[in-house]
């Protein structure tokens, strides 16, 4: 597990700010950038995984039962999943703050 970013001092950084630790992007919780949120209607979803394929981040999670939903810690609400869904089961709603 990568260190929380707030704990890293400049002296701790690798040369050239290179990253040799794998998976450190998990510490970047970019979901807070979002103003829109994708909502999946699980009754209509055909479990095809097109949303998972098209997500430009890695913010669609696949559950053990084969269903898909947005990982809100990383989803920025771009809406590509909703646009690409072949059955139109993903709607994009304004997120209440």
């Amino acid at each position, binding site marked *: 597990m990568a260190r929380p*970013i*707030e704990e*890293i*001092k*400049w002296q701790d*950084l*690798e*040369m*050239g*700010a*290179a*990253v*040799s630790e*794998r998976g450190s*992007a998990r510490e*970047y919780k970019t979901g807070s950038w979002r103003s829109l949120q994708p909502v999946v209607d699980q009754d209509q979803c055909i479990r095809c995984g097109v949303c998972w394929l098209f997500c430009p981040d890695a913010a669609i999670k696949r559950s053990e039962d084969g269903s898909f939903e947005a990982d809100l810690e990383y989803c920025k609400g771009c809406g590509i999943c909703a646009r690409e869904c072949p059955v139109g089961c993903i709607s994009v709603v304004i997120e209440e703050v």
Partner: protein
Amino acid sequence: MAKERKGIEVSLAVAEAVGQADCDLISAYPITPQTHIVEHLSEMVANAHLDAEFVPVESEHSAMSVCCGAAAVGARTFTSTSSQGLALMAEIFFITSAMRLPVVMALANRSLSAPLSIWNDHTDTMMVRDGGWIHVFVENGQEAYDHVFWAFRVAEDPAVRLPVALNIDGFIMTHMIEPVDFEDDELIKRYVPEYRMEKRLDPDNPVSMGCFAMPEIYSETQMVRENALVESYATCIKAWDEWAALTGRQYHPVETYRADDAEYCIVTMGSLGETAMAAVDELREQGELVGVIKIRLWRPFPFDDLFKAVAGKDTLIVLDRAISFGGPGGPVALELRSALCNSPKAPVVVDYVAGLASRDVTVEDFKSIILGGKAKAAGGEIAGFTFYGLRG
């Protein structure tokens, strides 16, 4: 190659030095007045005199990108450009130093457009002054040859690992035929040994370079860059001392000529230093207590060396070869004013901009600038800059 003095065009001497340093990869796009350097290198590679990859590319942006990739896997890497080429390269220029890739680049200094000019001044290099590279200026062919090795030696030092820009005045130096003392290959090998880069791109030890950074960490990455450049000063000095021990030719970050007992000095960077020395010789005969201060190391800026050189002087007259449009003077004068402003006995700095696009600055011009600057200092006219020789 054996130790030998040759009469040679400075561009070719630079290319031969890159070959003697056993460079692994050269990538470049031709642009005047840098062209002869990479043309000669491409010949050396094509004729199997140098075992290196020569990657021709479609732009300088690509040239520096190729150099970054090669340097990232640990290759000894060289490129060269000028003016518009440097401008097109600028995006990758800043990334090279941020990623700590020890590329060496000969910058054959030339004016920036517009209007189109192929001639020499320092407007191109000043554009990337804040790009995080080590910048060194040389004054003649011998210095250009010597500093190719110095640049590789410093850039690849594990404590430094930064790119080095070797500033060579376009045409005034690149196209001159000068006597150059070549060193033998064995000596060069001792000075620039085979290079093994730690933390390179290596499938067995994966590493990501040039990652994305959030606001929470960007400042820290920039402090690392600042620290690396400041700390590289010690290696710059060490590498000059080692070169002196091997060849007898000693270099310093700030060099002076007849400055010890001088009351005031002319400050130059690059090839015009030699003309300034001739002018000072003539003025000394007229009783003027004047000397020359030449800045060789531009980044990291050698503050302490400057303070030592200017101690006891009442006036510095700067010959700037670029303008900071809308600002208070040329970049060298700004640097000196800023460096000295908190010193209690700081000399006043009078700034002249001259020699743009290779307009001649002769010995007579230097004498006029030096005496004019002295009069301006006496009259308190020390703000801004004077455009020397401007009509109208």
